[in-house]
């Protein structure tokens, strides 16, 4: 626990040190080793999926996490869930550092942190009926011991998620994508969690079903006082559901602000480019708009650029961006940005 006082987070975007947070991420790093050789495995490089990010989430809040594919947003979610053991940094959930807990000590924490996955087809075990899939976590954690009461709770979970209790006798392949995603949500709710990570939870669904599932998630948040980390790449969905939005680029957090603030006054050049790429649903306006398309490709996270990771593609970059890592600063209350030029 001494680590907390000794280490200085490299980018302090969004850290509110004063109040004890519901969830606080401090300087989280996740490096995946790249190995060579079959018997004697030698580490030749690291993929820096998450490279020192810090933020916090208050109870009852929805934090949107956006960024391009491969920017590390899913890895952040997996680290919080302790599906990956992070390389460095702290994940404080209600004051306890999850990275210091062993598998056994994590079990009670896992009840409180749940996840909804992107793909409704692969996130359900095809060999299990919906009913036993929802009852299993309650049985394992000994929450409801009586099988009859457990079935009643399964039926309740299904109807809360807008599904007929009849579905508990069905297998996943007998259901549609939207129905399966609702089962995924019901499973996440089975243990009465406080915090749910929605990892691209609606990205794989049709637009009409997407709206239904988003509404369901909002209803559930109110009903059960849930906190969400909403990982997505669809900016309109994120704006709709999030209280605050964090933007990631190549394993780093570049900007964090209240939802409307970020979308109305994007400050970081990357956020601006990201929002600029969203088409406007009016051909008249769209044809007169000047697009500022980012030049170049996203660099490899195996060998990220020095200094500010965004400098090779940044329209505002100056010489100092090549060497010094920009520190996060608050440009207006609650609006953090990691860029020296704005």
């Amino acid at each position, binding site marked *: 626990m001494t680590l907390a006082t000794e280490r200085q987070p490299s980018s302090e975007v969004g850290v509110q040190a004063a109040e004890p947070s519901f969830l606080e991420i401090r300087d989280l790093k996740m490096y995946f080793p790249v190995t060579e050789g079959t018997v004697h495995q030698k580490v030749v490089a690291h993929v820096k999926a998450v490279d020192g990010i810090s933020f916090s989430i208050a109870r009852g809040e929805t934090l949107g996490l956006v960024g391009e594919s491969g920017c590390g947003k899913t890895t952040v979610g997996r680290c919080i869930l302790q*599906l990956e053991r992070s390389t460095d940094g702290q994940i404080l959930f209600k004051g306890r550092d999850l990275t210091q807990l062993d598998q056994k000590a994590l079990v009670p924490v896992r009840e409180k942190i749940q996840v909804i*996955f992107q793909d409704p087809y*692969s*996130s359900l*075990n095809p060999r299990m009926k919906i009913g036993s899939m929802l009852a299993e*976590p309650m049985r*394992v954690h000994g929450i409801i011991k009586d099988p009859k009461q457990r079935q009643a709770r399964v039926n309740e979970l299904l109807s809360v998620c807008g599904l*007929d209790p009849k579905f508990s006798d069905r297998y996943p392949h007998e259901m549609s994508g939207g129905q399966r995603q609702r089962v995924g949500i019901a499973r996440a709710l089975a243990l009465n969690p406080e915090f749910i990570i929605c990892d691209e939870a609606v990205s794989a669904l049709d637009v009409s079903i997407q*709206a239904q599932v988003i*509404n369901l998630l909002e209803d559930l948040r109110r009903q059960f006082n849930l906190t969400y980390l909403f990982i997505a790449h669809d900016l309109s969905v994120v704006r709709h559901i999030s209280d605050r939005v964090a933007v990631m680029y190549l394993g780093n957090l570049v900007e964090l602000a209240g939802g409307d603030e970020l979308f109305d006054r994007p400050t970081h050049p990357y956020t601006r480019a990201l929002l600029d790429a969203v088409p406007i649903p009016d051909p008249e306006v769209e044809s007169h708009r000047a697009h500022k398309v980012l030049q170049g490709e996203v660099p490899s996270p195996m060998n990220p650029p020095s200094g500010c990771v965004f400098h090779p593609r940044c329209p505002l970059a100056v010489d100092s961006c090549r060497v010094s890592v920009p520190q996060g600063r608050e440009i207006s209350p609650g609006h953090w940005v990691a860029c020296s030029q704005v």
Partner: protein
Amino acid sequence: MAIAQTAIENIVPEETRDPWYVQFWGLVRRQPLGAAGGLVVLIMLFATIFAEVLSPYDPEMISFEHMLVAPNADFWMGTDAFGRDILTRIIYGARTALFVGFTAAFVGSTLGLILGVASAYFGGIFDLVVQRLVDILMAFPLIVLALAVVATLGAGTLNVVIAITIPFIPQCARVVRSSALAIREIPYVDAARALGFGHSRIILRHMVPNVMAPYLIMLTTFVGHAILLEASLSYLGLGVQEPTAAWGLMLQGGAEEFAESAPWVPIFPGLAITLAVFGFNLFGDALRDLLDPRLRAR
């Protein structure tokens, strides 16, 4: 906002299934060879269960009046050098073959299944060590490894089962591991971990049921292999011992001495072995085709 959510998602699709005999006939038409293999398997099962009722004589009764009798109305497949009825011994031999075959195949592939899935699930050093051990065991041909085990443990039916089981474990573990590696990356395994399930629950309840297809295929082909191995070991005198009726043993008792003077002694057990192995292999192939979703979708 909340109104739209419940309406559309409640259409429960009604299931329609053909009656079993229609499905069965469809199966026979799609997989005629597999059905023939299945028939051989069924005949062997039938012979095993009703050996006492089916067989006309006692398999171990020695009769000096009827030594090396050619096939006739009383002895359909003739008699051997001890005057024992060959048909009776073939029926009882099916029992030995199936017992050894099923036990070795089931135990071997099940241990391989669990080892393979665990190896894929834990990964890292555990996976590395298990896979190198599998490599070592797989470097031996089946029969050589089985011979080595029998040579260590001694002959006898149970030791034959053990000797045949051991080479099956790494074979099944290798095949199952590759399927399990793919499954480990599927989100429902992550979901199970996020729900705080233990390792054994994730392996047995969430991963093993999803590698059943390769497991069942290995199991059926292993039965054929095991029957052949048992026959080979018995033929070499290292397997099942006299006077128990076993096909390999019957072949041994007839092949060299009576190949010309009384060919029925080696021919019928040889035919039985061939048919049984052929039957199980065809059955296993058909099962593979049926369980492979890419081939099933038509």
